[in-house]
């Protein structure tokens, strides 16, 4: 590793640790630790949401996918973007009105009880951990590829940093690390996009001409149909992408970090602008890679295409720009995994420890201590897992997250907020059927059961890599059947009235 790289990395690490030190002094109450006590502005939270959402897989993966598959790679990002409309129109404000720290709070404000809290805590915990481990594994590979650092050292450094941020700085540090990441990521990709355009003297015709020459697909590069052979598979993926975000706990708990519903809307408005502009820039970078480097150089360096953006940076800006883009990728990873640590921590220390084990009676100080120890435990255990799981199929766990979120947490949240007849039994069966259906279908699918190279070397029972199109309806169906099978209690209806009023108007929310 030469001096340029070293300086960039030290700079990032020192900056984020200063943020953490500053945040640690402000994380003295549970309210601040879990939600920054609602102190962020809408725009700050929007940047943090983007920082929480855009993973290194998006940044490097989508650029590579566009470079290899052309148009179809771009379709991927549209699903991620439109998913924010689902969050904004249907989920965001009610979640903000109803919850305090966790999604468990949201659902339990309508269906109080230990069973319900267990379900929400387990769902949140599972989704956050299963998303975090592949991110850590991918980061280990990434840093090895970029900087020639040993896999275990990279994982240990990133795992250590995310743990330090959350243990000492809680949500305050996490938010600001994510904000810094968004600023660095957006300015870096913007700079790189400008350099790409300048390479063609700002002529779109030249640019497109060179893209066609650079790819073996020729003119076909600009047409759909290269990435997804099976239309059903493609639609299933798009369904999971568009509904998945509205069930991702680490994104939804960010809605508690602002003061009121106006700021919630501003958060999502800023987030969609940032994320949308980011995906347009990834398109430029993907096309730029093909035009400037060519398909064969890219595939020659790494068959997955994940190195597209770094290689492009080196080609147009030498070692310095490559060091800068690598530092951005590094920041991207730590910001996302820190968001996942805090979301898993909240599910454990707030829902399980405070509400279930201590029956909601632990003191402020005990809660804060529990939260910090939980964050430490989660950070260490996930890092250890990531160190051991070097050979795990990363894409499987990432696609799993969206499918599981869209078929368990999303249906339960949606029905809790809007369906009058919905009851506790339905919410529990909904979570269970969504979790079981999505996990089982993924296990029976070609990610695991594959004739060539699967864990189980047999023909897959379910031929879909993304079983969202089956699992999501099963989640809703489970919730509805459970509801209708349970004896109708008159009380439910009366309670829904009050609940509904609060969901819709925000009455009775603790003003932070």
């Amino acid at each position: 590793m030469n001096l340029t790289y070293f300086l960039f990395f030290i700079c990032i690490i020192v900056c984020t640790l200063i943020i953490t030190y500053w945040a640690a002094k402000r994380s003295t109450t549970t309210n601040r630790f879990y939600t920054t006590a609602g102190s962020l502005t809408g725009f700050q939270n929007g940047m943090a949401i983007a920082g929480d959402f855009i993973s290194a897989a998006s940044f490097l993966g989508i650029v590579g996918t566009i470079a290899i598959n052309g148009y179809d790679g771009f379709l991927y990002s549209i699903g991620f973007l439109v998913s924010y409309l689902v969050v904004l129109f249907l989920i965001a404000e009610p979640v903000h009105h109803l919850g305090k720290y966790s999604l468990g709070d949201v659902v339990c404000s309508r269906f109080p009880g230990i069973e319900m809290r267990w379900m929400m805590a387990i769902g949140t915990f599972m989704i956050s951990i299963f998303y975090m481990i592949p991110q850590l594994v991918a980061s280990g590979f990434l840093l090895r590829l970029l900087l020639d650092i040993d896999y275990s050292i990279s994982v240990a450094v990133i795992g250590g940093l995310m743990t330090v941020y959350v243990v000492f700085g809680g949500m305050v540090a996490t938010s600001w690390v994510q904000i810094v990441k968004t600023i660095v990521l957006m300015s870096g990709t913007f700079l790189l996009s400008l350099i790409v355009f300048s390479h063609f003297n700002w002529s779109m015709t030249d640019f497109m001409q060179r893209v066609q020459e650079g790819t073996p697909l020729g003119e076909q590069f600009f047409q759909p149909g290269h990435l997804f052979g099976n239309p059903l598979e493609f639609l299933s993926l798009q369904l999971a992408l568009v509904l998945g975000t509205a069930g991702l706990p680490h994104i939804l708990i960010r809605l508690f970090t602002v003061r009121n519903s106006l700021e919630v809307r501003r958060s999502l408005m800023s987030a969609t602008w940032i994320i949308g502009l980011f995906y347009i820039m990834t398109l430029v970078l993907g096309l730029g890679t093909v035009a400037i480097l060519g398909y064969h150089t890219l595939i020659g360096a790494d068959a997955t295409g994940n190195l597209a953006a770094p290689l492009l940076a080196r080609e147009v800006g030498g070692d310095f720009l490559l060091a800068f883009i690598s530092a951005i990728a590094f920041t991207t990873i730590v910001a996302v995994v820190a968001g996942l640590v805090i979301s898993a921590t909240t599910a454990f220390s707030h829902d399980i420890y405070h509400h279930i084990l201590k029956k909601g009676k632990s003191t402020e100080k005990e809660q804060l201590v529990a939260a910090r120890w939980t964050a430490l435990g989660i950070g260490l255990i996930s890092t250890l897992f990531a160190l051991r799981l070097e050979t795990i199929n990363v894409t499987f766990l990432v696609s799993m997250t969206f499918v599981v979120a869209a078929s368990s947490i999303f249906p339960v949240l949606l029905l809790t907020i809007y369906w009058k007849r919905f009851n506790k039994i339905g919410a529990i069966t909904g979570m269970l059927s969504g979790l079981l259906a999505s996990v089982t279908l993924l296990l029976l699918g070609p990610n695991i059961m594959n004739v060539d190279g699967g864990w189980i070397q047999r023909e897959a029972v379910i031929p879909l890599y993304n079983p969202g199109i089956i699992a999501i309806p099963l989640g809703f169906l489970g919730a509805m059947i459970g509801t209708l099978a349970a004896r109708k209690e008159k009380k439910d209806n009366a309670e829904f009235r009050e609940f509904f009023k609060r969901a819709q108007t925000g009455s009775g929310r603790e003003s932070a």
Partner: protein
Amino acid sequence: MSAQHDYAEDLRDKKVDYEAVEQSSQFKRFLDNKKKFIVPFTVFFLIFYFTLPVLTSYTTFLNTPVFGDISWVWIFAFAQFVMVWVLCTIYVRKAASFDKKAQKIINEQINKGGRT
């Protein structure tokens, strides 16, 4: 008032007569307006979103060029971005007016115990 508000207790103590709030024409109008806004827009953006993958998967007529090398698939893809930003803006504007009405209901009815 804590965020873990016990509504059942409210109901027993008759602190707030939520039923009266719900039956009030003010609240009904509020919900109606909200529903009339959210439902059509949600249906619209879901259909708009799924039309693109359905058309690119099962038909090829979007592949025809519009001007130069740019074909309909690209126009439609960028239209999705525009749609997201436009709908966001519309929602944020509209919701500000809902906020005012909600605040009015809270002030006039819920805080007074629903006895209007």
